[in-house]
């Protein structure tokens, strides 16, 4: 018979008699040892005992349901259950019993999966028939199990394994309602058709969607906490080299910052603001259930011992979920304070093998430059400064600006670039000099390519997903590159009915080529600063090899020569492996155990030949007769990082009394993390100019060190729902970490959340516009143990050596490096979250809104202590930071049908405030490596507020006459600063450090992303626009290239054309006169807005499946992508508003990574092809 069945008005599945048993089990799972559970375990029952004489069929079915696990489906309109039947049975198999019953009642019985029995009437067969197929509108795949219902009746059918269906219909003009999980509902009027092919459109947000939560999955409709989801679809259709790159602008509340322009390097991800001051703000990453070690950025904003997303192939990823609020994340307790990112990789599906080949080819360039003065602009500025110096020093001797070289020689005595002009500057065509744009010298158009082959499939026993990937990307800076090789095998074996086991293994290898482009005094910074005027004889190779430095240039060696000759290479071999087994102890109760290993072997080598360093003399001749290669240097550093995790969980899922469903989880985890470092460096140069490895070094110094930590956890969670209407979830986790003081190693992290699916209430049925409505609220406590050190509470000794002896020799000294703190404990965050999920017009518009209030307390904060303790700071649990924010995610299906237009919007707002610091402390000035402090932690203000003097234009003679406050020995044309305070707290007519004020904060107030996708016939177009507002950059790169008192040799940005030149030409007011001697002080000159708007991605694709024969290729898509092509920012003192590459605090206790020469982002054009066989 056809596999058609009829729907009862209300379904029921349950085991009423088992309610109390189930509740007991739940409690026992939580509180009692596991041995006890065994006593109440039971097995599935198929034997039926009946003694019915002229009893109604309905009553008999009830009895059978009571005795067994079977559930019956029927439609009372067609099936007469009131007829009487008689049957005696003693412990007979249910199949026998039912056959006997159904033949008596002239009904059809059919056993389905999951212990369902469908009862239909033989007389239901009608005359007319409709046949057809259902396929996915996007990839043309057949859809199995799609429900097709005749509207107005309860008659329907589901599609078979080939997506086909055949249905008898009462008349030829019925309307079919087609519904399928994960797809938009369709209604089709048959109008006499007897064959119909239906294309279903995927629903971006579907209520029945299942989301991955920690240690399990849950129906999205039942989620009571804040979880953001990202689907792989977006990954496959773009050319992406890292996972974090794909997340930019995709999820509300998740701020993904591309902090570097070097390909292959990690991005920085922050969930819901900056909660911790010194214990890291990076989330916890969990790949297929394997919690990876959290990594935090170091002072320079880099991940020194790797980032969890390194080498992970983006196209292996199926979906990413971010657990944003504490209740969602609390199951990961101590490491969940900054959110948890759950990554699920692709698995095989039962069915035909599917082979895909994805490839792309493309080019990339710098998306922007920092506009610097050109040669002539530099000459004009240099002339102004040199003449200024000449007048200031020799004015008393009669020096005049108009003096020629001879006149100057007469006054100065000997030639000195500080007082002399190059006569060629003023000659037409500046003979013998080249004007060089150094950025153009280092940039290029880089090519990119990517190839990937995957195979997936499976049968009832084995499912598999296997992939191999090769990707190669040349950076847009010469010599920069990123190559990866990765493979993955996810295989799962269902060994018996109750036992399955699987292995996920992903070996990867990558090579990053970066000769040190970003950061202070590195190549990009130097390319901006290097004098754009050079001798023609040397050109772009100035001050390298046999070329001298141009007399008026700075001492920088040619950045081009450096790029071509310096080696900086990082090779990383990383394998992620998980082995797991899952045993179903009884129906609904399963035990899962997994062993996970993440092993990274990283080595980096550098080589700097003497030919591109130091001075001409040292490159060509050494008076001390030392070998030239004594100025060559090299190093070789390695780290090995291993994370081992064993997790054991017991989970129980059940539902009872038709309306209650319960899910209980109990688990335990052991986490071990070890890093071994070694470093080798040349000492005293090299003995060879050909060999780059350290065997050619004159001498080698080396060292190695290791560090490890252990985390031990116990956790449990209960999820309950009543009728899918009232939802409750609670979890608790206890974590013990070796990183904390002996008195306080354990922390307990509870959470609870509730939800109300209002849409399921009967009174909502009248409101047709609403298709989904749920409110939810949660509370939870989480922790952070990301101290940067595994031994923070222990007063470790540091080497403090000295020299003694009649024959001088080093002696070892040992001294404590910090104050002991045996009470050091978890940093804690408590988050309240209120959320609303909604859908309008049959979910044409869906979205969610969240409000959160997150308070981080007992911060792991280095509190300043008087130095009389021997130290300037002390690591303690003190202070608190609050983040309050709102998040909106909105998806609209603006057009459906032939022309489709979908929009999804994410918008987040976050405010961040220091609530308290150390006892009695109202502020901490964050030390600066380069100047007086310019970041402050102040109660009531955002973390790391920018604390500098405000500049208000330039000083006029009138200002000086009126005795406005000045800094040092300022004169007319120097900047005018705002005098707001003094040593006594009132303005004192003097500009000094007391006049600093808070002028901004580094984190944006708003971040947002808008994705529009369009589809028409085979074409698709997607545009991602993303931006942020409200933050500021205090740029040390800006300071390096625009500071007052800067010499003439360094180049300056092109906005210097609007500088103060004289009282008559005061310029735009921002740039003061270029010759100044009063010095400099931290001020708003170097403050920029971090606002930007960027069209991250434009992709146009075409579905080739219409053009290709189906029997060879199932699907194919060709696309072209433009990344980062259009955008606008306001960062004139650098190239990337999100850049971090240099440690601005110089102090491990207060991390302040900032921009000191960060590259612009790459823009790229890529052509790609996806083929499915």
């Amino acid at each position, binding site marked *: 018979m056809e596999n058609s069945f009829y729907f009862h008005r209300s379904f029921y599945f349950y085991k009423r008699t088992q309610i109390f048993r189930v509740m007991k089990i739940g409690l026992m799972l939580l509180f009692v040892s596991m041995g006890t559970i065994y006593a109440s375990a039971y097995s599935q029952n198929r034997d039926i005992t009946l003694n019915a004489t002229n009893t109604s069929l309905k009553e008999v079915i009830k009895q059978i349901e009571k005795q067994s696990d079977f559930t019956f489906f029927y439609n009372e309109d067609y099936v007469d259950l009131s007829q009487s039947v008689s049957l005696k049975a003693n412990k007979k198999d249910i199949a026998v019993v039912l056959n006997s019953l159904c033949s008596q009642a002239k009904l059809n019985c059919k056993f389905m999966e999951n212990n369902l029995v469908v009862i239909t009437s033989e007389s239901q067969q009608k005359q007319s028939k409709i046949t057809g197929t259902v396929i996915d509108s996007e990839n043309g795949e057949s859809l199995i199990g799609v429900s097709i219902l005749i509207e107005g009746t309860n008659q329907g059918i589901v599609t078979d394994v080939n997506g086909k269906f055949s249905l008898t219909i009462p008349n030829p003009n019925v309307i079919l309602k087609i519904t399928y999980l994960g797809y938009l509902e369709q209604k089709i009027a048959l109008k006499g058709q007897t064959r119909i092919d239906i294309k279903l459109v995927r629903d971006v947000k579907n209520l029945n969607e299942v989301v991955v939560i920690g240690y399990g999955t849950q129906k999205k409709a039942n989620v009571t906490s804040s979880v953001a989801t990202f689907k792989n679809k977006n990954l496959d259709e773009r050319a992406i080299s890292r996972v974090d790159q794909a997340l930019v602008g995709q999820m509300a509340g998740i701020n993904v910052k591309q902090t570097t322009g070097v390909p292959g390097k990690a991005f920085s991800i922050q969930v819901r603001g900056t909660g911790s001051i010194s214990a890291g703000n990076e989330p916890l990453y969990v790949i297929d259930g394997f919690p990876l070690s959290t990594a935090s950025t170091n002072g320079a904003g880099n991940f020194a011992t790797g980032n969890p997303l390194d080498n992970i192939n983006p196209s292996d990823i199926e979906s990413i979920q971010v657990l944003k609020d504490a209740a969602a994340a609390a199951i990961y307790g101590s490491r969940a304070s900054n959110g948890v990112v759950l990554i699920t990789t692709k698995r095989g599906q039962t069915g035909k093998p599917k082979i895909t080949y994805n490839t792309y080819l493309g080019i990339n360039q710098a998306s922007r430059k920092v506009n610097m003065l050109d040669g002539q602009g530099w000459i004009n500025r240099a002339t102004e400064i040199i003449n200024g110096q000449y007048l200031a020093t020799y004015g008393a001797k009669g020096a005049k600006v108009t003096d020629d070289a001879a006149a100057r020689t007469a006054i100065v005595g*000997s030639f000195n670039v500080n007082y002399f002009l190059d006569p060629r500057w003023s000659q037409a065509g500046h003979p013998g000099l080249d004007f060089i744009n150094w950025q153009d010298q280092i940039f290029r158009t880089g090519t990119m390519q990517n190839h990937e082959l995957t195979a997936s499939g499976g049968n009832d026993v084995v499912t598999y997903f296997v992939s191999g990937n090769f990707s190669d990307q040349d950076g847009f800076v010469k010599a920069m590159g990123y190559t990866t090789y990765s493979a993955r095998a996810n295989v799962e074996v269902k060994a018996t009915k109750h036992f399955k086991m699987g292995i996920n293994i992903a070996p990867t290898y990558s090579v990053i080529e970066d000769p040190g482009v970003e950061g202070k005094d590195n190549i990009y910074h130097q390319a901006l600063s290097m004098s754009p005027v050079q001798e023609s004889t040397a050109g772009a190779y100035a001050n390298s090899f046999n070329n001298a430095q141009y007399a008026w240039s700075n001492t920088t060696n040619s950045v081009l020569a450096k790029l071509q000759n310096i080696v900086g290479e990082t090779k990383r071999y990383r394998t992620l492996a998980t082995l797991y087994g899952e045993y179903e102890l009884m129906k609904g109760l399963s035990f899962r155990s997994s062993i996970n290993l993440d092993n990274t072997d990283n080595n980096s080598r550098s080589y700097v030949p003497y030919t591109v360093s130091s001075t001409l003399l040292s490159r060509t001749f050494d008076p001390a007769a030392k070998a030239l290669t*004594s100025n060559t240097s090299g190093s070789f550093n390695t780290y090995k990082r291993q994370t081992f995790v064993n997790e054991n969980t017991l989970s129980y899922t059940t539902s009872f009394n038709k309306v209650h469903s319960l899910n209980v989880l109990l688990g335990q985890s052991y986490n071990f993390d070890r890093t071994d470092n070694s470093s080798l460096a040349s000492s005293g*140069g090299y003995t060879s100019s050909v060999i780059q490895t350290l065997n050619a070094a004159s001498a080698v110094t080396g060292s190695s060190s290791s560090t490890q930590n252990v985390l*031990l956890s116990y956790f449990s969670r209960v999820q309950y729902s009543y009728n899918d209407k009232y939802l409750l979830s609670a979890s608790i986790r206890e974590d013990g970490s070796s990183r904390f003081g002996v008195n306080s190693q354990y922390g307990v992290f509870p959470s609870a959340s509730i939800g109300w699916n209002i849409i399921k209430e009967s009174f909502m049925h009248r409101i047709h516009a609403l298709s989904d409505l749920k409110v939810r609220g949660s509370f939870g406590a989480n922790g952070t143990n990301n101290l940067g050190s595994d031994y923070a509470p222990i007063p470790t000794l540091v080497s403090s*050596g000295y020299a003694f002896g009649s024959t*001088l020799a080093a002696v*070892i000294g040992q001294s404590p490096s910090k104050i002991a703190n045996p009470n050091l404990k978890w940093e804690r965050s408590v988050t309240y979250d209120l959320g609303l999920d909604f859908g309008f017009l049959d979910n044409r518009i869906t979205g969610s809104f969240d409000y959160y209030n997150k308070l981080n307390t007992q911060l792991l904060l280095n*509190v300043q*202590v008087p130095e009389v303790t021997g130290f300037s700071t002390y690591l303690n649990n003190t202070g608190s930071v609050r983040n309050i924010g709102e998040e909106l995610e909105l998806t609209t299906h603006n057009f459906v049908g032939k022309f489709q237009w979908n929009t999804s919007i994410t918008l987040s707002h976050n405010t961040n405030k220091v609530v308290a610091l150390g006892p009695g402390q109202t502020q901490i000035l964050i030390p600066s490596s380069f100047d007086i402090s310019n970041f402050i932690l102040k109660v009531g203000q955002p973390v790391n507020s920018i604390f500098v003097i405000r500049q208000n234009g330039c000083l006029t003679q009138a200002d000086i006459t009126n005795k406005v406050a000045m800094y040092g020995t300022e004169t007319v044309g120097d900047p005018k600063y705002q005098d707001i305070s003094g040593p006594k707290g009132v303005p004192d007519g003097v500009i000094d450090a007391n006049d600093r004020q808070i002028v901004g904060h580094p984190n944006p107030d708003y971040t947002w992303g808008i994705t529009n996708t369009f589809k028409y016939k085979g074409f698709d177009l997607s545009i991602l626009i993303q931006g942020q507002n409200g933050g500021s950059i205090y740029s040390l790169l800006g300071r390096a290239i625009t500071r007052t*008192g800067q010499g003439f040799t360094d180049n300056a940005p092109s906005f210097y054309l609007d500088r103060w030149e004289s009282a008559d030409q005061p310029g735009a007011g921002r740039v003061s006169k270029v010759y100044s001697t009063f010095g400099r002080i931290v001020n708003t000159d170097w403050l920029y807005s971090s606002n930007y708007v960027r069209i991250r991605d434009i992709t146009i694709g075409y579905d080739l499946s219409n053009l290709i024969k189906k029997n060879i290729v199932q699907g194919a898509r060709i696309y072209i992508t433009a990344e980062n092509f259009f955008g606008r920012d306001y960062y004139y003192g650098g190239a990337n508003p999100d850049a971090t590459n240099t440690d601005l605090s110089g102090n491990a206790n207060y991390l302040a990574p900032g921009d000191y020469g960060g590259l612009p982002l790459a823009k790229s054009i890529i052509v790609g092809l996806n083929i499915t066989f």
Partner: protein
Amino acid sequence: MKKIFLIFTIAFSILVTSCNKDLNQVPISQGTTLTFYQSPSDFIQGVNAVYSDLRGYPDRLLNLSEIRSDNIYGVSDLGVRDWDPINSFQKAITGNTYVEEAWNTDFNGIFRANEVIEQIKKNGSTINSATLATRLDAESRFLRAFYYFDLVRYFGKVPIIDHTVLASEANTIKRSAIADVYKLIIADLQLAITNLPASYTGVDVGRATKYAAEGLLAQVYMARSGPTYGVEGPGLGLSEWSLALPLLQDIISSGLFALNANFANIFSYANQSPTPTGNKEAVFDVMYVTGASGTSSIYGATYPWDLAPNIYFKSINDSKSNGSLEVIPVSNDLLNKYAANDVRKAFTVHTASYNNAGSTETRPFFQKYLDFTKIPSTSRFDWGINFIAIRYTDIMLMKAECVLNGAPGSQATDVDAVVNQIRTRAGIGAIPLVNVTLSQLFDERRREFADEGSRWFDLQRSGNLITTMNNWINVEDLTRKQMNQVVAGYIVYPVPQSQLDAAPGLYTQNTGY
């Protein structure tokens, strides 16, 4: 089924108990205070660490005493360097790196000394030798006094910390009166004089001796004898010259020390071992060794190039960027104080012009500790020359000063003869001086000790600091007008801003800042 559960239960409980122990991790690559101070060598290493804080002492003298004084006219050309506001008497120097460094390093040294003194008291029985325990304690006390005297000279009043303190206690300890700080210094030094040996042999040469403690205590008494200028500074206006005198006399009559015949030889890289086997001028050295083998740490010095410009090193083809970022020129005033034939002038000051990248630089710089054939091969932080913290010539001239200030002694033998001996060594003693005055003595000290960081303190003690400095500024800074006038408050430096911030209200700022 039952079996499976049993196995799970057993496995689970084994896991839990074995893992709990794993939470007690001990650092793999570092020692800890819990495992240390168990053997004599541990205590010796602990004391060595107290010495280690001396390594920044010479740089500090140059940055805070030499640059502050009239020996340097260090107004920078291109941008402001950290030393500029020190040299120009700017008021806003509470956050200055050098000021912060002085407070922090000296108090760190005091912390380390206290830690060792306490550990000797607690676990000293493991040292076996009572002599060694006594010596180590005395060395620590000498160094504690050394750091405290450094603090008093720079900051005036400071908190007294005679034991290790935790944050909570530190927040209650205010700055003490100068006299009380001196009380601790004098007590420590007197104990050190009693318990320290007169000299060391072999690997211990260079540790603090009895005579180092006597020399330091003499400096303390003389500093206390200086005028107050109405400021809570190192000078207390006490006349303790005759307390200093016997200490100096004891050093002189020990016979262990002598004037070097050749001035240059005092600072020779070949004459680095201190007395008794080596440099007879060195009563107490801050010691450095270059290219220390078998270690990746650096035990060499940076101070030799602190006051020399990087561009000079470049001009002689040094690729390691030795030297300060800019020229920190020697003042014309100092140069003019030298007679043309004074050997100390050419040795101390580099006056010849030199070329770098086409430019000629003519401004002179200090080169007293620089031997350009000894540029370290690996690191610019690794120069191999000791710094003589207490020099025998100074001991002699200090004695002369005490006598001129009324301590018992003879003008002819204790003053004139000594000054003439030193002038002769400098090549300018052809006509012996008679009846040398204090003013002449201070002029001689200036020439002799230029680039040794002694000038600012000499000016303090002389009582003429404010007038001398302002007269000099008015002449030297006539055209550029970059410097401020010196007022009495500038005798000492401000309490660093970080300390005021760390414990708001605990310390009061020095007047004048």
